[in-house]
């Protein structure tokens, strides 16, 4: 009698265990970047529509408003009120800043809703060495990435239309991105507070984004609005970003301190937004 032993072949690589496998220092040092990587991987699922939107939006705006309405405005000799430039040149910095804000808004609000409510994948991230702060920073960085691409495309179109000159491309790039980041940080903070998906985006769209577009000196100078409405512009990061862009683009007769106050105001939004988001995200993940 011979005994046979049945042994299954083992294909698996040896189990090392996380104590050997995971380099905690490395995981921690690049934690926010790993969140960004994950976000960008997700974004790539939509790269077609992101690119189409990034290119289509400026082209449509420039043809319809910039050239269409512009022809009317310029014919009426309004250049003096627009700082001595054509309507297209006047409009370009506003469109650029609003595109940056739009891109940042998309990438700071939807992913946060997804992360806390729809898919709850922030909770999955948080069960790894990733912290709430890493998530906020990582999402901001991925929004920045998307906005860089969007603004670069936009500037290309603006250049092609002759709405900006080549020498202001870089400074305008920076000011638009900064305005976007300032708005994005606050948008993210606001979204971290949303506990139920009951029309949050509709409210934001109708009561924040739409009025901001209308009353931030986007399509006409803020000063030409009645005084009792100008405050909307003053609090709106879009106006601050737009005014910065205009100063850079064609040097509207602005005093130095106004320019500096734009930067400071936007920086304040960024800092307050981020810190609120850090705190609230940590609270929700620990609940």
């Amino acid at each position, binding site marked *: 009698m011979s005994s046979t032993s049945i042994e299954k072949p083992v294909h698996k690589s040896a189990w090392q265990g*996380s104590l050997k496998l995971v380099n905690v220092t490395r995981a921690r040092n690049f934690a926010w970047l790993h969140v960004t990587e994950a976000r960008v991987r997700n974004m790539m699922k939509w790269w077609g529509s992101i690119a189409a939107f990034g290119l289509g939006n400026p082209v449509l705006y420039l043809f319809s408003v910039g050239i269409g309405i512009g022809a009317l405005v310029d014919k009426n000799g309004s250049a003096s009120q627009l700082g001595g430039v054509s309507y297209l040149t006047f409009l370009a910095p506003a469109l650029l800043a609003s595109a940056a804000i739009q891109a940042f808004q998309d990438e700071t609000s939807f992913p946060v809703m997804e992360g806390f409510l729809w898919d709850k994948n922030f909770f999955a991230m948080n*069960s790894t060495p990733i912290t709430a702060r890493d998530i906020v920073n990582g999402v901001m960085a991925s929004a920045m990435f998307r906005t860089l691409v969007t603004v670069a495309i936009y500037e290309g179109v603006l250049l092609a239309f002759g709405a900006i000159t080549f020498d202001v491309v870089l400074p305008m790039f920076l000011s638009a991105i900064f305005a976007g980041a300032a708005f994005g940080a606050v948008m993210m903070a606001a979204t971290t507070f949303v506990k139920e998906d009951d029309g949050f985006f509709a409210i934001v769209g109708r009561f924040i984004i739409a009025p901001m577009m209308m009353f931030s000196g986007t399509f006409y100078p803020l000063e030409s609005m009645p005084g009792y409405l100008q405050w909307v512009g003053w609090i709106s990061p879009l106006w601050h970003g737009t005014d910065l862009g205009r100063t850079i683009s064609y040097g509207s007769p602005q005093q130095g301190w106004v320019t500096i106050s734009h930067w400071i105001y936007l920086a304040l939004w960024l800092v307050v937004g981020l810190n609120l988001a850090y705190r609230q995200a940590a609270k929700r993940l*620990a609940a």
Partner: protein
Amino acid sequence: MIVARGLTKVYGEFTAVDGIDFEVRKGEAFGLLGPNGAGKSTTMKMIASVSKRTGGELTILGLDPNKRGPEIRAHLGVVPQQDNLDRELKVHENLFSYGRFFGLSRKFLKGKVEELLEFAQLTEKRNSKAEELSGGMKRRLTIARGLVNEPEILMLDEPTTGLDPQARHILWDRLFRLKEQGVTLVITTHYMDEAEQLCDRLIVMDKGKIMAEGSPADLIKRYASKEVLEVRFGSSKNIEIAEKISHLGHRTEVLPDRILIYSENGEEDLQAILKMGLEPVTSLVRRSSLEDVFLRLTGRTLVE
């Protein structure tokens, strides 16, 4: 691996976990058993180092989770009660993406992902989006995801709730293999059969406190008899008849729909009942289970 002393979690006025003590040893499958709201999930979140304790002591792998959460989490595998997969990503991308959060290299993950797909029997589904998977497949993917860092401790919160019997058995088999590999398992469940199948040792929790601790066999020996005779006389007669037969067995328990008689020999007691001229609508003699332990400890059934 895990030591808890007087572990407490208070939310405002509500005490979810009320000063519990336990230890989990390396390579052990440890269960937290109890009905919904017993404090199991809260305890799990504290062990998972995401929710901070408000009192007592807790160390995991020798570290304090309130201070060194991210470091501890690097060595845990977490399977939450609710699958939180990335629905937009494909099955294999879910595993890869999660592995990156541990800072694991792309090269390592390439091989690891294939291995995990095989383990979870999802190789054929590797290119499906996570949202297209069935409930059982999602669960297996979530478990596979929790293994990507080869964790020292794998934590499973209600791993088979909502699964059909076949899917449950596949899962149990996978978990059993992990245990054989030396992975420490911490499992919550309100299914008694699951706890008996998987756990070496468990604590029974109710209202934030530990009611009993031991191996499943131990607990059954301590808190229940060898056999249980279940008889049904119809809901209107159960109470009345229970009094007549209360001398049988060690103890009787009257539930709305049936009478339980805890005894050493259920068949003998059934004969005794029949001799008394009583005719139950249905009768069943079975082995005692953790369900009976829980009933004894809390006076309530687990799934209400």
